[in-house]
């Protein structure tokens, strides 16, 4: 289990201080799809990056099966790197413009798994098939792909090491409604297939309610509600959660 306990993150700039995350606790449980929802700038991405071991918290702890994930532990530990993967928000800039699709997906395999060339190729091919990426795209560069394809390449790359913990940061931002739905369905399917503990970060309450096994609502750096979601938005009790539900715009 990946557990963040009483995590606070404060950024200091000269004499001014900004607290992005305030005493937040969140657990990612294998088989469960948790959605962290909140307005833009409320600290969701910061919390997810702390959970992934990308940035250290100012206080609090992040543990994976009892082992600290706080940097630089993650950078030095190949197992931690392979087990926690993140799909970053902007797929266009999350892929090296010089890398082909094949090379982008193969990179984590080469760095973290050290498979043979044949095994690597088999895994990349199977991931591309699973993500419905035509094999003709293997040699293309990110600049030659559509938004949906870019997102799929990023997901394939994150799945390449068969991680036990997957974090999707605004997986559907910048996509049109149809592509958005297909990506959400894909995330759900992948979650069911892999059984990975999945954290999806979004500002879109409708997408959150569509996806969540567990829902955590964030407001100004604090998690104000964290409960299992059974399909009834009425179960959300916090006034901010209710306001987000009232304001949501359902898909056509």
């Amino acid at each position, binding site marked *: 289990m990946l557990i963040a306990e009483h995590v606070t993150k404060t950024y200091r700039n000269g004499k001014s201080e900004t607290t992005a995350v305030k005493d937040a606790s969140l657990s990612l449980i294998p088989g469960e799809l948790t959605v962290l929802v909140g307005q833009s700038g409320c600290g969701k991405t910061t919390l997810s990056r702390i959970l992934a071991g990308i940035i250290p918290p100012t206080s609090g702890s992040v543990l994976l099966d009892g082992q600290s994930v706080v940097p630089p532990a993650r950078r030095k530990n190949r197992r931690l*790197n392979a087990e926690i993967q993140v799909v*970053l928000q*902007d797929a266009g800039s*999350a892929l*090296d*413009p*010089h890398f082909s699709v094949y090379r982008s997906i193969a*990179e984590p395999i080469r*760095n973290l798994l050290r498979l043979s060339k044949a095994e690597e190729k088999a895994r990349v091919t199977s991931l591309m098939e699973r993500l419905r990426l035509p094999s003709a795209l293997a040699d293309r560069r990110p600049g030659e792909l559509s938004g949906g394809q870019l997102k799929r390449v990023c997901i394939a790359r994150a799945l*390449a090491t068969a991680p036990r913990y997957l974090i999707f940061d605004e997986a559907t931002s910048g996509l049109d409604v149809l592509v958005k739905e297909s990506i959400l369905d894909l995330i759900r399917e992948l979650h069911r297939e892999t059984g990975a503990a999945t954290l999806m970060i979004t500002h879109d309450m409708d997408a959150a309610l569509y996806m969540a096994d567990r829902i955590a609502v964030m407001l100004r750096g604090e998690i104000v509600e964290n409960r299992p979601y059974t399909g009834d938005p009425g179960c959300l009790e916090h006034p901010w959660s209710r306001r987000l539900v009232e304001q949501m715009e359902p898909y056509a």
Partner: protein
Amino acid sequence: MAKRLFRNPQAILGLALILIVLLAALLSPLLAPHDPNATDLTKRYLAPCPEYPLGADELGRCELSRLLYGARASLGISFPVLLILAVLGLFLGALGACCGRVPDQILTFVCDTFISFPQLVIAIAVIGILGTGVRSVILAIVVAMWAWFARMVRSYAALEMGKDYILAARLSGCGTGKLILLHLIPNILPQFLVYLSTGVASSILMVSGFAFLGLGLPPETAEWGGMLSSARGMIYTHPEMLVYPGVCILIAAAGFNLFGEALRDVLEGEG
């Protein structure tokens, strides 16, 4: 990018000038009508004629042959200098941007210290310590210019470090070495090449400047700066002796500068 570059008149002009200088340097033994160092006092200040197309200098040496071999001397020093500067700049600049705050601050401080002195002053000081010779000139220019290259690479690398693909590479287990070699350098290379091409011009000018000041290369070496220096006394009697090497320096420097500027315009257009 190549297509856009070849449609840019400035790039074509720059490339043409570079090509002229390169061909002159490479083919000088074939093109030069005489030995550039062969003196013949009976032909002092000889006017242009079929045997001596640009005439002869104060020692009766063929001016054209000396100019052709001069290209060899200028480029023969500038290219190794640029190669060393490129490796040093990329390595130090990328390390500064990648390896955290303290190494970055140290690199910035050292670079700022070097940059605060005029390049020529640093180079003259190095030659003063090491003495004259090709190696000393190369080392002097490297010492004078490395900080500019490292600083430039560091600035571009720092910009790239903030991008998501670098974070994604880290998440996929890339160590610092791989990050620099596979991600950072390929992505700053276009901007670096622009800087490098204008650096060739600076280096050619510096080599000529040294020769003009009587530093660096042996006096008998056919080199544009040296030829310019020895023709100083003839400005009123034989001004063409100053014009020829001056034009050569202008062509070489202008070629690399024009090409570098055009490359930058094309890249900015693509950005």
